[in-house]
C-alpha cells in the first residue's frame, strides 16, 4: 500500500467510524433520529447548529448512549492495538490479551480494588493485574529460552482460568444481591455501566499508549524474523520487548478497568486488518485501532438491542463472531510447527 492509498484508506475509515458512532447512538428503545443526535452533540460541544433537542432525548444521547458508544470504541481500539503488538513481539498469531490471560489478570486486579478496597486507583490495579498475568504466562510457557505459540496459549489458558476463578471468588466473598451479574460483566465484558469517566480513562490510555506504539512501529517491524534478526537490524531486543509488553499491559489494564475482559477483539482484528494494511506497523496500528473501535461499537449495539429489553454482556457477541475466525486461523495454518 503506498502513501496516498494509505492516507485515503485511513481517512475513509475514520469517516466510517464517525458514522458508526452516530448511528449506534440513534439505536435503542427510545427512537432518536440522526439529526437529533448531531444537534445534541453539537450543542454540548458548543458548535453551531447545536441545541433545540428535547431535554429527555438530549440526556439519553449525552448521558447514556454517547459515553457507552465512545467507551466501546476506545476499548475496541485499545484491544486491537494490544493484539497487534503482542502478535508481533511474541511472533504468535494466536497472541491476544484475552487468550494469554492479561484481561483476566486485569479483571482480578480491578475487582480486588473495588471490593477489597486496596489502595490503588482502578486502572493502576488492572495494569498491575495484567502485567502479573503476562509475566506469569510467559515464564510458564518458556522452555530453554524459547516460547512456542501453542505453549503460550496453554499457559495463558491456565493463568486466565486462575484469575477468573480469583475474580469470581472475590465477588462472592463480598456477596451482594447482584453478584452474578457483576461476575458476568467482569468475566465476559460489558460497557453497560459506561460513564464519561470511563470514556476519559479509556481514551487517555488509548491516546498515550497508542501514540507510543505508533512511534515504535519500526521496532515492531524489525521483529518479523525473530529476536536475532531484530538485534542484527540494530534493535535492543530485550529493552524493546519489555517496554512494549509493559505498554500492552497498561493499555489492556485501562480497557479492562472500564469494560471487564472482552475476548477476541485483540485476536481477530489484527489478522483482518493486516490483509488490508500489509505488515508495516506504521499503517497497521492506526487502521487496526479504527477497525477495532468500529467492531466493538457494532458488537455492543447488537448486545444491547438484539434481545431487548434483556442485554447481553458484549463478550458473548465478540465470542460468537471471534471463535469461528479463531477456528479458521487454526485450520488455515500451513505448518504445524507452532503448536
Amino acid at each position: 500500500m503506498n502513501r496516498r492509498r494509505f492516507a485515503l484508506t485511513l481517512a475513509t475509515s475514520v469517516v466510517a467510524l464517525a458514522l458508526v458512532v452516530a448511528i449506534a447512538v440513534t439505536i435503542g428503545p427510545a427512537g432518536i433520529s440522526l439529526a437529533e443526535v448531531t444537534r445534541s452533540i453539537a450543542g454540548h460541544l458548543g458548535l453551531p447548529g447545536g441545541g433545540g433537542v428535547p431535554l429527555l432525548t438530549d440526556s439519553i444521547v449525552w448521558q447514556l448512549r454517547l459515553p457507552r458508544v465512545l467507551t466501546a470504541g476506545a476499548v475496541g481500539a485499545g484491544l486491537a492495538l494490544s493484539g497487534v503488538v503482542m502478535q508481533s513481539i511474541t511472533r504468535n498469531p494466536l497472541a491476544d490479551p484475552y487468550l494469554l490471560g492479561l484481561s483476566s489478570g486485569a479483571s482480578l486486579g480491578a475487582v480486588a480494588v473495588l471490593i477489597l478496597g486496596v489502595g490503588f486507583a482502578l486502572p493502576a490495579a488492572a495494569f498491575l493485574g495484567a502485567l502479573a498475568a503476562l509475566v506469569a504466562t510467559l515464564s510458564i510457557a518458556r522452555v530453554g529460552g524459547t516460547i512456542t505459540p501453542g505453549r503460550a496459549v496453554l499457559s495463558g489458558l491456565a493463568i486466565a482460568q486462575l484469575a477468573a476463578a480469583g475474580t469470581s471468588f472475590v465477588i462472592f466473598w463480598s456477596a451482594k444481591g447482584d453478584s452474578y451479574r457483576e461476575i458476568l460483566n467482569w468475566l465476559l465484558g460489558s460497557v453497560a455501566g459506561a460513564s464519561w469517566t470511563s470514556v476519559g480513562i479509556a481514551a487517555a490510555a488509548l491516546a498515550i499508549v497508542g501514540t507510543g506504539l505508533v512511534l515504535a512501529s519500526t521496532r515492531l517491524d524489525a521483529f518479523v524474523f525473530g529476536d536475532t534478526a531484530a538485534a542484527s537490524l540494530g534493535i535492543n531486543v530485550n529493552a524493546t520487548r519489555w517496554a512494549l509488553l509493559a505498554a500492552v499491559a497498561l493499555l489492556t489494564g485501562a480497557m479492562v478497568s472500564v469494560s471487564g475482559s472482552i475476548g477476541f477483539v485483540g485476536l481477530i482484528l489484527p489478522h483482518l486488518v493486516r490483509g488490508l494494511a500489509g505488515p508495516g506497523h506504521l499503517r497497521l496500528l492506526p487502521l487496526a485501532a479504527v477497525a477495532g473501535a468500529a467492531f466493538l461499537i457494532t458488537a455492543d449495539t447488537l448486545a444491547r438491542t438484539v434481545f431487548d429489553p434483556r442485554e447481553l454482556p458484549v463478550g458473548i457477541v465478540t465470542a460468537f463472531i471471534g471463535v469461528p475466525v479463531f477456528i479458521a486461523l487454526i485450520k488455515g495454518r500451513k505448518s504445524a510447527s507452532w503448536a
Partner: protein
Amino acid sequence: MGVTITGLSLSIDGRTILENVSAAVPAGAVIGLLGPNGAGKSTLLRLIAGIAKPDAGAVLLDNVAVGSLPRREAARRIALLEQNAAPSVDLSAHDVVLLGRIPHRSRVLGGFGGDDDREVVAEALHAVGVGDLADRLWHTLSGGQQQRVQIARAIAQHPSLLLLDEPTNHLDVSAQLSLLSLVRQQVRARGLTAIAALHDLNLAAAYCDHLLLLDAGRLVAAGTPDEVLRPSVIAAVYGVDCDVIPHPRGGHPVIVFSPAGREAERAESFRGPS
C-alpha cells in the same frame, strides 16, 4: 583491517561453547567457518555480529571493537543471515529487503512504511538475480530464492561485513553452487568481507579464500583451503578417513571420503563365496 578476533571465550550454564578463539580474517575475502555440529560456529557468528556478548575477548572490525558499538551502529556495519529464517506474517520479497534499511532510517518512521528506499531495494533484488520477484510472498518462494532475498536484504543494509549461518542448508546442489558464487560475486563487487558457516567441506574448498576450522569450541586450523583441508586435520576433527586431490579443472582441493565399512565389504566380495 578486516576482522580480528582475540581470545573469545563463552560458556553458557557452565558449558564451554567457545574457548580462547583468536583469528585474523583478511578484508575483501570469503571466509568459510567449518566444524562439526556443536563446534560453536553459530555462536561465533553471533559474537562477531555483536548480538551475543563474550565472557572474554573481543572482535575488532576495521579496528573498531564491535562490542563497544551501539546496536544500531553495529547493524550499519554487519549484516547477519540466520539459519532457517522465517517471517511470522506473510511478507513480500520487497518488504523483506526493506527490513535491511531499518538501521539507516529514522528510528520512528523507518519500517515497512518507508517508500524512499525503493531504489535501494530494487537494486539489491536485481543484484541477486530476483528482480522480478519483488511482489512475491515469502512462502511462495523456493528455498534458493528465499536465501537470495535474504542476501538482498543484507546488501540493502550496506554492511562491510556479511555473516552467513549455513546459507546452503536445505538447498539442492545447483542452488548451493549458484548461491555461493553469488556471495563471492557480491563480495568482489561491493568490497565486502563475508564469513559463512558451512557444513560441506567441498563447497568451502571451492568458494572460500580462507578457512577457519572449529572443533569443540576451539580454533584448530586456519588458513587457505590447501592449508586447512588436509587428511590428517579432517580425520582428527571429523573422525573420517579421506583423500584430498586437486580439482581436475579448478585446482582447488577436493575431499574424497572413504565410506566407512565399504572397504571391508569390497574386500569380502573380492574373496568371493567360499
